């Protein structure tokens, strides 16, 4: 047994492109205390967001290096876990050998973004751990969102594999693409991008409208090794029109706050920064028209349901369906449409964004799903 198995470094996570450091809001386990795998170890906050960090493996929290109220750069060592059998000397030796304040590419997978241009289409792709050898994973976010919808997932899923979060046309840092609105057209447009980035196939995962697009891709144009659908559009009841219209019509902070709170089980999860970023995106010239066209083509009425049954039955590779039980946008009953043989997981105390609200649980489910598929 070597050090990497016996001594587990806890490093400052990196949630999204812009996070450079985090502050320890609270340690839930004190030095010398025991934690099970999956238990919340600490809370980290940035100027944008706060979230818990879970223990990846069980053990004793032997050293806390960065204390409550202190900040540390992403990827830097903040604590060490190990079993009781590991001596203090061994931990000292480990600490001496650990590269302090290393860049992300040493202490955790690197994240970069680039615009990929195929024909007329230009889309922004945020990539974690681009140099890794494993089968890549592609993430497709939902309506009105961007790659930050995966801020708690992308790095966590990038162990040994590249994870590409593609920003849908007219979303995030992808340029406005008026005329590209229906899920089928968007899927057709994205297929060459995915094939270009991952000529040897990839795992696909999509959330909400991104789930509908991922299903379409996996059933046809793309060699999908597995498919993960998180609260996908088209499987169950129509999208909540109050949300869609509220999102389209909200031009200011208060109405946007009320609308975004519909997305989550705990309204406190919606921060001022999320509201401001969403409004900033909606205020870009052309965003309003693009969003209205996309909503009209996919999310008003039953448009997204078209072809779902055929596409589900055309799938040959493993399917994971994840849904928040308290989803107020696309009700969790949609999971009943999953075909026999699919893995279906309903998440307690989560709304339409289980990958953010219960990120640790959802990351575990996706990681296990990818492992099974390989």
């Amino acid at each position, binding site marked *: 047994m070597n050090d990497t198995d016996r001594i587990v470094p806890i490093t400052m996570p990196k949630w999204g492109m*812009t996070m450079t450091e985090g502050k320890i809001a609270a340690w839930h386990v004190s030095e010398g205390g025991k934690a099970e795998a999956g238990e919340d170890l600490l809370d980290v906050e940035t100027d944008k967001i706060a979230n818990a960090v879970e223990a990846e493996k069980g053990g004793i929290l032997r050293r806390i290096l960065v204390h409550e*109220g202190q900040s540390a750069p992403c990827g830097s060592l903040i604590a060490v876990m190990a079993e009781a059998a590991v001596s203090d000397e061994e931990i000292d030796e480990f600490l001496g050998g650990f590269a302090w304040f290393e860049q992300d590419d040493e202490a955790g997978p690197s994240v970069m973004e680039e615009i990929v241009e195929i024909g007329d289409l230009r889309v922004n792709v945020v990539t974690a751990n681009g140099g890794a050898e494993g089968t890549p994973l592609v993430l497709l976010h939902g309506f009105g969102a961007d790659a930050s919808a995966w801020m708690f997932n992308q790095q966590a899923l990038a162990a040994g594999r590249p994870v590409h979060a593609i920003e849908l046309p007219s979303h995030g*840092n992808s340029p*406005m693409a008026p005329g590209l609105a229906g899920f089928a057209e968007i899927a057709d447009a994205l297929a060459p991008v995915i094939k270009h980035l991952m000529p040897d196939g990839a795992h696909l995962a999509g959330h909400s409208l991104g789930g509908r697009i991922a299903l379409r891709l996996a059933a046809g144009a793309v060699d999908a090794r597995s498919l993960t659908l998180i609260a996908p559009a088209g499987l169950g009841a129509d999208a909540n029109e109050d949300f869609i219209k509220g999102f389209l019509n909200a*031009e*200011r*902070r*208060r109405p946007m706050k009320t609308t975004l709170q519909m997305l989550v089980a705990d309204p406190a999860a919606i*921060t*001022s920064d999320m509201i*401001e970023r969403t409004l*900033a995106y909606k*205020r*870009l*010239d*052309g965003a309003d028209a693009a969003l209205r066209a996309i909503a009209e083509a996919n999310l008003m009425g039953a448009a997204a349901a078209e072809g779902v049954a055929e596409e589900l039955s055309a799938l040959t590779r493993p399917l994971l369906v994840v849904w928040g039980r308290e989803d107020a946008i696309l009700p969790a009953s949609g999971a009943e449409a999953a075909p026999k043989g699919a893995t279906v997981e309903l998440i307690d105390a989560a709304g339409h964004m289980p990958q953010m609200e219960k990120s640790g649980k959802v990351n575990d489910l996706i990681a296990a799903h990818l492992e099974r598929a390989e």
Partner: protein
Amino acid sequence: MGRKSFRAALNEALHQEMKADPRVVVFGEDVTGGTGGDGEQDAWGGAFGVTKGLLGAYGRERVLDTPITESAFVGAAAGAALTGLRPVVEIMFVDFIGVCLDQVMNQAAKFRYMFGGKTRCPMVLRATFGAGARSASQHSQALYPIFTHIPGLKVVIPSTPSDAKGLLIEAIRDDDPVVFLEHKMLYDEQGEVADQSYAVPFGEARIVREGPDAAIFAYGRMVGRAEAAAAKLAEEGINVSVIDPRTTSPLDTETILEFTEETGRVIIVDEASPRCGMAADISSIVAEQAFGALRAPILKVTPPHTPVPYAPSLEDAYLPDAARIVDAVRRSLAHR
């Protein structure tokens, strides 16, 4: 998206709107950039570098240097706006408004009302304001209360590069006269600014920071100082909200009242003179409409009622700083 300076963000807004709308014209003193030693044009991009490159891109028909006669060129802007252009006119220092106030107060601000809504005056008056540059009493004032006092004008005070761009684009697209005030000490501030065009609406405050213990309202350069004060207080476990209303007219009264209700403690930081300024104005709104929510007296952090001093030590002492804001928060919290 990329990091840009406040100056570059304003320059990008002007470029994008001039490109998108041929009715947009720019004029003022030295806006074609100034002549270099060898006769080179656009040598410095205007007195503060904001109009750099406009002359080369849009030519002398749309980027015009004016004589040093504010009353003439501000009046010309009002007239041009009435007849269909969208002029963006620059007064180098807002302190010079004295020589052309009639054009703004009695002409531009009144046209729409006095012609019964049959005409519009879509002009933007850009000017630098504020102390800190060692420029003495006649080049350092924060005169936004004068404009805020005049019905018919919209008054904008950006505090970040991102807001500078979005608010200037909104100002140019607005159909009414807008006074757009740029703090001269913010031009080199850096921040994330989207490359695409976007407009930030008037009358909506920016929530800079959220905390339950007190609410600090601040404009322009004072926003950064309020943030510094909030960061200092956070080290001691005191978490305050910092709100930048962004425009004084229209004023986002709703957000001011919302944060008053949430915190019960109000501190207003204003770089303008204390009499009849935004601190006084916001105080009156809070006292009148949210008195029951207050747990402590409303506190104002402002300069003294004197001209801006020239001596650097006096100018520094004149301006509200983070220490004074921290002190005000503590005094507010001392009321139980």
